[in-house]
């Protein structure tokens, strides 16, 4: 320590109330998480590799064997991409859950909780940073998809709409990740707990194969799967093949059902997460 005297420092001040204070604190936390991502680029790179691999494997390995009703040999490629995009955004769950679990075990959550900042900001900041990472991943993925031959055919605006739906879904799912991260005891457990249920969820859907090939009872599950609604909505907005027409209600109103599901998931899980955060003990 140096011999010079430390100045008193600023007088402590009161927490800023309201949404503005919350957003400001969240942005401070988001900045911190985004900085971390640039310091550990492996996380971003590995986050990219998995979906890019899926695009290549499904296009070149399985693509020839899976037929989309009413489509030619190129149709599966067009059909597939929305599914991979959607699966990719839901993987934001793992980032959020592992990140928050790590902050818990490292004592950072205690530090944040002892500061005069908005209670929800640690989680909002985390999910916003994950959203930025997801957006980046989706952008790279879209470029790869474009290179292998995927196209959107309904114009730029509708395509943007589709990406907005995807990011909304990803953001909603990162709140599920937040709750998982607050609930498990280690970052490792958080990663597996964050991913394990995503496989059945994303596969029992219209993401990779047309639902019409599934047994009847499973079809009902797949049609009502929040994930299917977003995939269907994206296919419509991208102007990609949607498989056989169905008279299932959620598939006929896919855009609205997708938005509804995402908002519902966000509302429920952000409420549960913030409540859990208040009482969280490392």
């Amino acid at each position, binding site marked *: 320590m140096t011999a010079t005297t430390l100045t008193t*420092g600023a007088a*402590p001040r009161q*927490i800023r109330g309201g949404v503005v204070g919350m957003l400001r604190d969240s942005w401070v936390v988001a900045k911190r998480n985004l900085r971390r991502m640039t310091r*550990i680029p492996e996380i971003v790179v590995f986050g990219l590799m998995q979906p890019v691999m899926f695009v290549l494997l499904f296009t070149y390995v399985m693509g020839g064997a899976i037929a989309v009703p009413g489509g030619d040999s190129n149709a599966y490629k067009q059909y597939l991409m929305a599914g991979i995009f959607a699966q990719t955004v839901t993987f934001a769950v793992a980032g959020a859950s592992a990140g928050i679990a790590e902050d818990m075990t490292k004592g950072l959550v205690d530090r944040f909780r002892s500061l*005069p900042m908005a209670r929800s900001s640690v989680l909002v900041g985390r999910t916003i940073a994950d959203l930025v990472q997801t957006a980046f991943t989706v952008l790279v993925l879209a470029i790869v998809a474009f290179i292998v031959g995927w196209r959107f055919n309904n114009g730029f605006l509708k395509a943007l709409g589709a990406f907005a739906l995807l990011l909304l879904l990803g953001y909603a799912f990162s709140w599920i990740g937040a709750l998982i991260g607050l609930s498990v005891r280690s970052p490792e457990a958080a990663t597996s707990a964050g991913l394990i249920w995503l496989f059945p969820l994303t596969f029992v859907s219209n993401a990779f194969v047309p639902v019409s090939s599934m047994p009847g009872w499973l079809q009902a599950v797949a049609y009502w799967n929040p994930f299917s609604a977003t995939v269907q909505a994206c296919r419509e907005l991208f102007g990609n093949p949607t498989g056989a027409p169905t008279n299932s209600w959620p598939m006929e109103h896919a855009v609205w059902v997708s938005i509804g599901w995402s908002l519902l998931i966000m509302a429920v899980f952000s409420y549960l997460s913030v409540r859990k955060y208040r009482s969280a*003990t490392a």
Partner: protein
Amino acid sequence: MSEAAISAEGLVRTFGDVRALDGVDLDVPEGTVLGLLGPNGAGKTTTVRVLTTLLRPDSGRATVAGVDVLKHPDKVRSLIGLSGQYAAVDEYLTGQENLQMVGELYQMSAREAKARAKELLEWFNLADAAGRIAKTYSGGMRRRLDLAAALVVRPPVMFLDEPTTGLDPRNRMALWEVIEQLVAEGTTLLLTTQYLEEADRLAHDIAVVDHGRVIARGTADQLKAQIGGERVEVVVTDSAALPLAVDALSPYAIGEPTVEPHTRRITVPVTGGARVLADVIRELDAREILIHDIGLRRPTLDDVFLSLTGHVTESDEAVAETESPEAETATSRKKARV
């Protein structure tokens, strides 16, 4: 009576079957340091967590800087600084970024937070490492960064939970100096520690905690006085001489002598200080008992701790665990003595 900067009344907190806090009462007058001493699991950290709004007690009341902890936790958070048991810094941010983030979360403007971070890094001798990520810091550097984070605003009340655990002696001394300076400038401090030496040096008042209760309270001197006065300790060269030596010492003893055959050590409570010591030496010499070591001992906080809790401190326990069974027997004998 001066205003209590920290006060707690009847804090109870259970975790399942465990009563971590079983009615803790505390008060810390403004501008003083309270040392919270206790073995592992005594409730020190739980007490700090309740007072820093991290944990709600099942019952009881507490105020910090006059603000009710349970009713206005947000207000309390703007008045306290906390440095927890492990250095809570973001490993992937630089020292500068870590402190700046904390400053902004203390509601400073970005510019203010930046300036304050720079100032703190200089004061804690971290200026050279300011631009490096904390992952590359040594344990002592991280601890200092963590303490700096607790000082981003100058909070009127600070909580330091085992601030020097894991530090080497040089870093520990340096940190003590920082803490002393803060207190000299008027900060009220609650400090938990497993180093009795640390409590002796830094704390005005000491509260000994065990099984979730405060079992003793007072200044270091008061606590030492509670368990009695000085004693003469003799280590004889040959253990066969132990009975003879006890016999020689008994006229000077004001209580039962304690004999530790392993270490060939006899301890007798005495009064009269150095004069008695001289007499004892002459007596032993006259009886031709060879001594390896002799000394007059005043009680240490270690003794206080032992006599109050019936067990040794964490650091001693850890030593006993790693040493031979013989050492453990010595420890249990030591326990039996008090």
